[in-house]
């Protein structure tokens, strides 16, 4: 049978229960989710609701307690902090994935050099991570992820360690790079504005144990990179809609 599923990543009634000596924690109750090739999906939810666990499951770092994950493509994972290895130069850091997966290193180096050149890090290939700014480090981390040519990128709050201005700029850059490279992306964030500005679709999760509360397709009046989308007249509407869905109670005392 030919797989006619239109989804590149598909979670089918996935749930996750963590065991510890004292207690049992249900992190994810029941999540079903499909992501189409080339799509950018943002997942938002209250903090600690198991968003990151969802990405760990997709990357098969953990096995879900129940349910299945269907995926027939390579994944790249981008974590909260860049985690560049301090003792490796930028080029060596970007070569980490190909090295670990035993790719042809010559070809991989050519590809990495191409990416470094294309995304403005070419002058820093032989620098060490601590010589780079936060934004540049995050860009290097993205190139490290792209070096293994993943079809799907998992982004776990990749901008949360950056200051606000850098954050906006790097989000814009990353979005543009992913668009250019034609990658599918799943972004987990607690920043509603960030989620809307980058995604084709925002999935709102409930508080722990997580399940899908609502899926909101984002259609702006004009297409463009995140910074432009933040200016869009519909941006506010989506923001309010998701804010209400998240049902965040702010104490006024």
């Amino acid at each position, binding site marked *: 049978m030919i797989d006619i599923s239109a989804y590149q990543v598909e979670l089918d009634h996935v749930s996750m229960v963590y065991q510890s000596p004292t207690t049992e924690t249900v992190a994810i109750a029941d999540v079903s989710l499909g992501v189409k090739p080339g799509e950018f999906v943002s997942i938002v939810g209250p903090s600690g609701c198991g968003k990151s666990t969802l990405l760990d499951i997709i990357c098969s*770092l953990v096995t879900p307690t129940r349910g299945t994950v269907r995926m027939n493509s390579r994944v790249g994972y981008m974590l909260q902090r860049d*985690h560049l*290895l301090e003792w*490796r130069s930028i080029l060596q850091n970007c070569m980490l994935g190909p090295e*670990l997966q035993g790719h042809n290193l010559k070809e991989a180096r050519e590809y990495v050099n191409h990416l470094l050149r294309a995304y403005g890090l070419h002058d820093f290939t032989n620098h060490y991570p601590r010589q780079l700014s936060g934004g540049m480090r995050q860009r290097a981390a993205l190139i490290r992820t792209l070096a*293994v040519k993943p079809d799907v990128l998992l982004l776990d709050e990749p901008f949360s360690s950056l200051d606000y201005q850098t954050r906006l700029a790097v989000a814009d850059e990353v979005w543009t790079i992913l668009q250019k490279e034609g990658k599918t992306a799943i972004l987990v964030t607690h920043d509603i504005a960030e989620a809307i500005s980058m995604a084709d679709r925002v999935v709102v999760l409930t508080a722990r144990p997580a399940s899908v509360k609502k899926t909101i397709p984002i259609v702006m009046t004009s297409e463009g990179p995140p910074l432009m989308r933040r200016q869009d007249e519909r941006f506010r509407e989506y923001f309010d809609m998701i804010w209400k869905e998240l049902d965040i109670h702010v104490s006024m005392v």
Partner: protein
Amino acid sequence: MSAWSEKSPERKAYLRSRYRHYVLVLVSQMLILIGFVLLWELVADRRWIDPFITSQPTRMWATLLHLHQNGTLYTHVGVTLMETFWGFSLGMLGGFLCAVLLWWSRMFQEISEPYLVILNALPKVALGPVLIVWLGNGSAAIIGMAILISIVVTIISMVSGFMEVDPDKIKLLHSFGASRLQILLKVVLPSSLNSIIAAFKVNVGLCLVGVIMGEFLVSQAGLGYLIVYGSQVFKLDLVMTSILILAVIAAILYIIVSYVGKRLLHWQK
């Protein structure tokens, strides 16, 4: 940067005061040494203390020259260095392999924990006589002593270094599908280089302790032997000279290890 090549007066003043501070510390350190040697010589010369039991710098110098001329200096230093080298290398290697094993298997680590704690607390010198019975009264027992003294500390400090590695870095490698060996080689070892080098530095000293202890117990040669022999025949000149040589050796070994460590950590500079 060229705009700042002309140093501002404040910068100059700062650099000058830093330099002055540095010189002051260095001169004080040297004055203390010179003063101590001169004082020692003076009080021994005036017979305020008895140079027969305290020795004195000029007598130590004469002893050193004597040892140099009859060549025994090099035999004894050579023996002690050789034993320290083997004790250090084998202790580091054994400790490193054990640490890797303990990191590899969580289960093994838990099982061995109480044994390690007790071995660490046990004064290793107590095992000296046992080593002599097992390994004979020669260099083997002395090297055994040095290994015994250094290995447990090595294991404990290396394992704790390995366990401190950022779990997110390990997660990153897992996301690339890395094997446990790859995680060890690409992340755990490089990021614990600091603690490995710290263990190196501590071990040089500990091995020297082990070797001298061993030489006290059994030996026909080495600086420890010279010290014990000297004290038995009441040649305090020999004892003091040997201790001085030992201090110089300890300093040189420490400098070598520090230098090697700095070279290995070049990316931190």
